[in-house]
């Protein structure tokens, strides 16, 4: 029914039959037949259209439509058979030209024949269900020329041969090709069936052979370059002389033969495959691979998988390399470099593909968390940058560095561990006044705040506030004391809010009497202005500048810690003290004391004390002497504390324990929040919900969650369901 388009209705004219000459039809047809011959013989100029039209009209009118139509078919078929013969006789390359020329002539003749037969086309054809004249002409051309046994295969072979020669680099007559394929398209499905199908088959075998050959002798990059060239050639070919509908088909053939079939081999090609490209930053080759593989199913998936695998493997090696672990700054710098490298590859070669970015992120997340010291190292990296690394660097560059750190921070699962360390490191920076730029510090805090929210940074911000108020307090203190302080020691106090700072429970040490006096004055002043507060001295965190005179009246200013100051003050009265004596006099905890003594006596160039016996380590029966012979070319000597910048193993354990301890209330709070809204839940759902609520800070261990649930049951926040033990109920 689809062929039935709008048609005009036939009018039955002349109901009364006119007696006409019985030979009339035959005679009229002869005139028309002659005209058709003349048209095909390019001799139409002598014909009268009006007369021919009237003749054809009269034949239809007098019910000779059938005769007219069948006569037309016979005559046209006869001419086409002659044309077929002349095309068959055309030699060699003239074949296509002859075909093209005859096709043009046939079209012209067909148009004129249709003009003559227009009335038949309008009336007889629709009512008798025949094919309209124009379509009839095309069908007859198809059947007598294109499907003629001597032309059909020759035409196909000629076309395919020309295309093959063009693929091999020869120049062919594209205009002629276009005319011929245009003819096949005009004939409807002929183009698809008689040309396109075999064309695609031949192309497939051509590219299958070529790709086999290429893959044996080319490296991956070169192969891809050639494949890309072939693809663009085929697209160009389609635009020049094939039907635009063939483009998708032929490119998919090339893609299938040259890429999809060899994907595995290309990606893993030795010395030039994907991994090598990634390692050597071959942006162009990578971009080419991306653009080619994108065209085939699972092509990008393959690139992504191999890249992910490679990334995870190199990342795993990086974070577990004991050499790298020695220097946290270097460790983090390596991570950042690796990230920069891949960011550049993805933006330059992979079209900023989101799925690749995700793969990169997930890989980083995977291997950064393989090493549980990553949070500490990242914090140390920031510490390093904020202590010295950023000196003289412009504000924008500082932002860049911090942003990169934040990116690593995002990968961390245990963000709370990072927070712990960051707090410690920040405290040290603030208290020792070592921070390079307040702006940089604050910018980092703001970044953490936007990333993790207010709670995460509230304590960090509290630390800054404390620092600021301390300055004011101290000013106030000295303003009130101006009369009484003569040449006694100057005291600089930082008042730290408990809770905001990572304070260790500090054993108080015995301060020298000179210091105690002014300390007491400060305490009185402070408690006088702030009622209801308590002050505890954190002697383990302070520093002191003391002036010392050595032999030959050499004067130096020593920058030491509070503990070291206490020790050195003892030597004001005696020149020799045993370890035990020092320990008794100062009451400094043993581990700290040993560390202090080590830095005072065992560091070359800073040994203001002399130890007996001379050894690297401090033993309990050692004795210490004032080193009279101490010399230094500096007036100011900074005596550091021998302390690993990185945490020692026991410290690490301790930090971890504290982190675990801090997590407990958070997990409990999450459980209660969830149960309060859901009332009844089974165990697995709680675990999932808690994990999803807390994962912005850390990844809670299911065993720990279970323990917390049990603890909440004990404290009667929850109860187990009486019927189903797997269910928990919230008790309001």
């Amino acid at each position, binding site marked *: 029914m689809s062929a039935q388009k709008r048609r005009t209705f036939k009018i039955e004219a002349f109901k009364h039959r006119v007696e006409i000459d019985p030979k009339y039809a035959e005679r009229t047809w002869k005139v028309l037949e002659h005209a058709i011959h003349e048209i095909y013989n390019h001799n139409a100029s002598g014909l009268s259209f009006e007369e021919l039209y009237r003749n054809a009209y009269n034949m239809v009118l007098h019910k000779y439509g059938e005769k007219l139509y069948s006569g037309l078919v016979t005559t046209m078929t006869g001419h086409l058979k002659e044309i077929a013969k002349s095309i068959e006789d055309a030699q060699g390359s003239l074949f296509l030209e002859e075909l093209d020329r005859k096709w043009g002539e046939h079209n012209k003749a067909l148009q004129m024949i249709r*003009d003559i037969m227009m009335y038949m086309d309008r009336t007889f054809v629709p*009512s008798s269900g025949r094919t309209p004249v124009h379509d009839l002409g095309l069908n007859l051309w198809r059947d007598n020329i294109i499907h003629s046994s001597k032309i059909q295969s020759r035409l196909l072979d000629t076309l395919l041969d020309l295309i093959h020669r063009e693929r091999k680099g020869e120049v062919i007559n594209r205009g002629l090709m276009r005319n011929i394929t245009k003819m096949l398209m005009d004939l409807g499905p002929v183009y698809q069936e008689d040309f396109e199908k075999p064309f695609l088959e031949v192309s497939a075998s051509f590219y299958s052979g070529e790709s086999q050959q290429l893959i044996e002798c080319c490296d991956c990059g070169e192969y891809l370059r050639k494949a890309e060239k072939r693809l663009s050639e085929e697209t160009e070919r389609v635009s020049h002389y094939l039907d635009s509908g063939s483009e998708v088909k032929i490119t998919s053939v090339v893609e299938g033969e040259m890429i999809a079939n060899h994907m595995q081999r290309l990606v893993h090609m030795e010395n030039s495959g994907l991994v090598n490209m990634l390692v050597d930053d071959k942006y162009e080759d990578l971009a080419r691979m991306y653009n080619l593989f994108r065209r085939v199913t699972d092509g990008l998936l393959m690139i992504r998988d191999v890249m992910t695998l490679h990334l995870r493997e190199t990342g795993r090696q990086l974070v577990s390399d004991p050499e790298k672990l020695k220097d946290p700054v270097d460790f983090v710098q390596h991570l950042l470099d690796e990230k920069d490298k891949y960011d550049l590859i993805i933006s330059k070669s992979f079209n900023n593909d989101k799925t690749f970015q995700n793969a990169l992120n997930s890989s980083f997340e995977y291997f950064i968390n393989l090493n549980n010291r990553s949070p500490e190292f990242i914090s140390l990296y920031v510490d390093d940058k904020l202590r010295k690394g950023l000196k003289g660097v412009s504000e924008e560059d500082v932002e860049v560095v911090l942003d990169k750190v934040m990116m690593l921070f995002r990968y961390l699962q245990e963000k709370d561990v990072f927070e712990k360390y960051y707090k410690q490191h920040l405290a040290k920076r603030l208290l020792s006044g070592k921070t390079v730029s307040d702006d940089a510090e604050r910018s980092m805090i703001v970044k953490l705040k936007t990333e993790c929210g207010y709670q995460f940074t509230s304590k960090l911000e509290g630390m800054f506030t404390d620092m600021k108020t301390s300055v004011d307090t101290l000013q106030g203190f000295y303003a009130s004391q101006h009369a009484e302080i003569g040449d006694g020691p100057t005291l600089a106090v930082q008042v730290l809010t408990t809770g905001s700072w990572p304070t260790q429970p500090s054993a108080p040490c015995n301060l020298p009497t000179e210091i105690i006096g002014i300390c007491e004055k400060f305490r009185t002043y402070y408690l006088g202005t702030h009622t209801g507060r308590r002050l505890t001295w954190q002697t383990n965190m302070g520093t002191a500048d003391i002036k010392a005179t050595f032999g030959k009246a050499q004067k130096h200013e020593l920058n030491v810690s509070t503990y070291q100051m206490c020790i050195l003050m003892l030597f004001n009265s005696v020149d020799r003290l045993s370890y035990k004596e020092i320990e008794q006099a100062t009451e400094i905890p043993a581990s700290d004391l040993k560390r202090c003594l080590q830095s005072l006596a065992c560091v070359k160039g800073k040994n203001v004390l002399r130890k007996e016996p001379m050894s690297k380590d401090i033993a309990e029966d050692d004795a210490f002497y004032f080193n009279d012979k101490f010399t230094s070319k500096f007036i100011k000597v900074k005596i550091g504390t021998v302390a690993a910048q990185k945490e020692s193993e026991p410290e690490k354990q301790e930090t971890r324990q504290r982190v675990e301890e801090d997590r407990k209330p958070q997990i409990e709070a999450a459980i209660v929040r969830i149960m309060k809204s859901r009332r009844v839940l089974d165990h697995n759902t709680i675990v999932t919900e808690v994990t999803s609520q807390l994962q912005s800070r850390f990844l809670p261990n299911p065993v720990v969650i279970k323990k917390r649930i049990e603890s909440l049951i004990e404290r009667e926040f929850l109860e187990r369901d009486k019927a189903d033990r797997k269910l928990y109920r919230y008790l309001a």
Partner: protein
Amino acid sequence: MAGRKCRVRFNVGGKIFETTATTLANAGRNSMLGALLDESWNVRQPEEAEYFIDRNPACFAVLLDLLRTGELHIPPNMPEKLLFREALFYGLLDKVRAARWGAFDGNRLHLASSVSGRAPGDGTAIRAGPEGGCCVAHGSMVHVYDWMLEAHPPISLDFQQVNDVGYIDAGSIVITARERLGKGDGGMGVFSASTGELRHRFRVTHYDQVKSFTAGALSFSNADRKIFTSCKGRCNEYGIAVWDQDTGEQVDFFYEQLDCSLGDADKLQWLDADKCLMVATLFPRRDTSFIGLLDFRAKGVVWSWSDANASVSASLDEKRVLHATAVEETRSICVVNQYDDLGFIDLRSHAGGVRWSSRSKLMNRKAPNEESCYPKLATHDGQLFCSMNDGISVFCGPEWVLTSTLRRSFGGSICDFSIGGDRLFALHSEENVFDVWETPSSPII
């Protein structure tokens, strides 16, 4: 022939006509005149040539005027048929049809023609074709008329009682017919409008078995190329069948559900905007009226209305919904009752009842008598049409104000009417007459 000669001289049956190439270009290349002037036929024509055409000069004058002005004026002494024949010779019949009457407007209609039929019994249905023709179903026969109102060979499907007819396009007519008990005939077929030949017979298959069925109401979706028919079969083939217009194959079957009777539907209407089919099964075919919207993608009735609950204490005087049509512009369904009251049901609400329009009561209503027909409704281009006894009322505007009445003095009440091809056809119950209403072409100024 650009610039070569802009004046063209004809000698038609001895009379000389002169015109311009521009005027003749209006005829188009696919006309006799277009071919006559084409380069391929004028290779050796000298300048100032004269074309001889052995035809009627008076008709040529009318047609040349049509090409010049786009308007058709037939002198009173010239038979229309003569002009049509000449127009067909020149390949200008389509242009004559296009100029014959104006764009449809319910308020400007005038009675163009009355055609008396030759059927023995009462008319069942009249349907307008897309190009101005129509077909009339009487008993088992369908009479087909083209836009010139010439009768074509009548068609029938096995001489069964015809239930409904409809045009797929100007050349193809679908007929649904009732099955005779025990004969396994009836069903549905496509016929050529010009010759009356059966082109395709539709089949209902149920579990791969071809079933005989009675086909009822028809509707077409030209955008989706689908035909919808209400079907009643022997066993459980009750429901709405869907066919493809191009292949003629059954593509879907929507089975009748418990609370909606689909196989008996009086009226189907495809709603293009909603991609839904309105199905109305109404009194008196069923005691309770049901109107629903079927969504074939969701396979369900997405909206429905029924008076099943309202008519528990049914009395004869109660308002019964007798016909319905969906008005897509206002998202409502318009219904009519035995008192010729219009009512509206809102498609946007699922709980709404019929909001009867009080305005229609103002019209002087004749008491329903034996001879009256059930009222019918139709919409076209924002206008609502309702047949009431021997007239058709036209309602317009958002409040559906009565704006025109189409009535003439004889023929009895109107049993069916249809709008299409910019014409309105009304079939009268007596005398087998149908009227053709057209909008005249635009005024000169």
